């Protein structure tokens, strides 16, 4: 039946499904570009979760209390899980896990640039939770309604787990904001350093974003970069008051007419520079991932050998 249909017919059926909010599932026909866009986006998202473990992993051994250490471990463990949900989702599109990881290591695939910034103080764990996870959540809540079924389902699971990440981050900053002068300064310093990179997480302006229009039509994305960024600024500009801190932007002000905050311009040179691999930690992050693969080889070998042994034993019994 399918063989008799033209590509135009198939594309029409496909777009009708999207327009009627019917999810696309792995075995359904889909345009090649839709498959590729999803592979690119989901794998990039997966890599971000995995590389995202590194800046925080840096502080597990230096967390200020056992409670904070346990929380941080749980958060980093969640991120490993989120990476896995997304890699699995990606595999349903016909790319192997190995290829996906290989693309990360070769530099072909990207991950969120935010993780190329260093975590200098404990307050950064707070700022990452509040701002970086906050920005990620806005994007991910939107993606629970994305048109590709496995991606949407992974996002639902991730969003459920993610909200503790943001709350624990805000709480870290809240505690610091009520502490000594030194702790307050540390809190403000981390907000100063993470604010602009967090705004960059939403990507280039809509007018500059090459993939946006098609992705909106296919409902892979459901809100534009600038729309999400505005939501984020509106949220944070109010939340920062509770901390008694300031966002590092002297152009930030409430606009009574639009009911939105106005703010300054992102340093786009910095953004593209980090995307191209020249951020403070790009090399270090990628090297850590490659080392993890190479130095973990003996673990994979041992697991395979153990599985083999178990099989032989079972057959003998």
């Amino acid at each position, binding site marked *: 039946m399918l063989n008799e249909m033209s590509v135009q017919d198939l594309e029409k059926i496909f777009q009708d499904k999207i327009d009627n909010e019917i999810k696309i599932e792995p075995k359904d026909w889909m345009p090649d570009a839709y498959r590729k866009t999803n592979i690119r986006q989901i794998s990039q998202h997966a890599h971000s979760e995995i590389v995202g473990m590194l800046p925080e992993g840096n502080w597990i051994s230096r967390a200020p209390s056992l409670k904070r250490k346990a929380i941080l471990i749980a958060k980093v463990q969640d991120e490993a899980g989120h990476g896995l949900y997304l890699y699995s989702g990606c595999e349903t599109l*016909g790319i192997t896990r190995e290829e996906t990881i*290989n693309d990360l290591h070769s530099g072909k695939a990207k991950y969120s640039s935010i993780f190329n910034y260093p975590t200098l103080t404990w307050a950064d764990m707070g700022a990452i939770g509040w701002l970086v996870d906050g920005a990620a959540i806005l994007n991910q809540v939107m993606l629970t309604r994305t048109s590709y079924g496995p991606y949407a389902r992974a996002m639902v699971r991730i969003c459920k787990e993610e909200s503790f990440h943001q709350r624990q981050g805000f709480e870290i900053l809240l505690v610091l904001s009520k502490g000594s002068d030194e702790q307050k300064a540390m809190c403000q310093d981390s907000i100063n350093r993470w604010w602009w990179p967090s705004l960059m997480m939403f990507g280039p302006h809509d007018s500059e974003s090459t993939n946006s229009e098609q992705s909106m039509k296919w409902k892979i994305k459901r809100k534009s970069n600038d729309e999400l960024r505005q939501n984020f600024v509106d949220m944070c500009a109010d939340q920062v008051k509770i901390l008694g801190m300031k966002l590092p932007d002297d152009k930030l002000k409430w606009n009574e007419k639009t009911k939105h905050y106005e703010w300054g311009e992102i340093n786009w040179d910095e953004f593209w520079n980090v995307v191209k691999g020249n951020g403070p930690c790009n090399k270090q992050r990628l090297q850590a991932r490659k080392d993890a693969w190479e130095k973990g080889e003996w673990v994979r070998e041992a697991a395979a050998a153990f599985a083999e042994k178990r099989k032989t034993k079972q057959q003998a019994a």
Partner: protein
Amino acid sequence: MKNFIRKFYYGDIPDDKAGGDNNETSKNPPLGGRGADWPLWEVFIRSKQGLDHKHVGSLHAADAQMAIENARDVYTRRMEGISIWVVESKYIHASNPEEAGELYEPAVDKIYRHPTFYDLPDEVNHM
């Protein structure tokens, strides 16, 4: 008779129907080494006694026991389950979406299978 059941692995899209070229992916040499080739497993979780196991996702593992242990770590970190099933993805057979029309057609015109088809007086209770 149409081919309603096809050996069709989860997420495995045949080249001729993929809507494009499946093979154009990474041009880099494979990572290689053992463990890069662990099979894919589908994971099903029973969230509480009395409910069905439900598909939650998939993962790679060397064997069934490792798949269950990994599923425990990945899918039940917040007490989401009390029982786990894993099955190697290659053993899942699925109906073919292209044949969905014909496959489910027999049910379409049998509205008398639903209770709402029957018009009874309002006085009839408990039915």
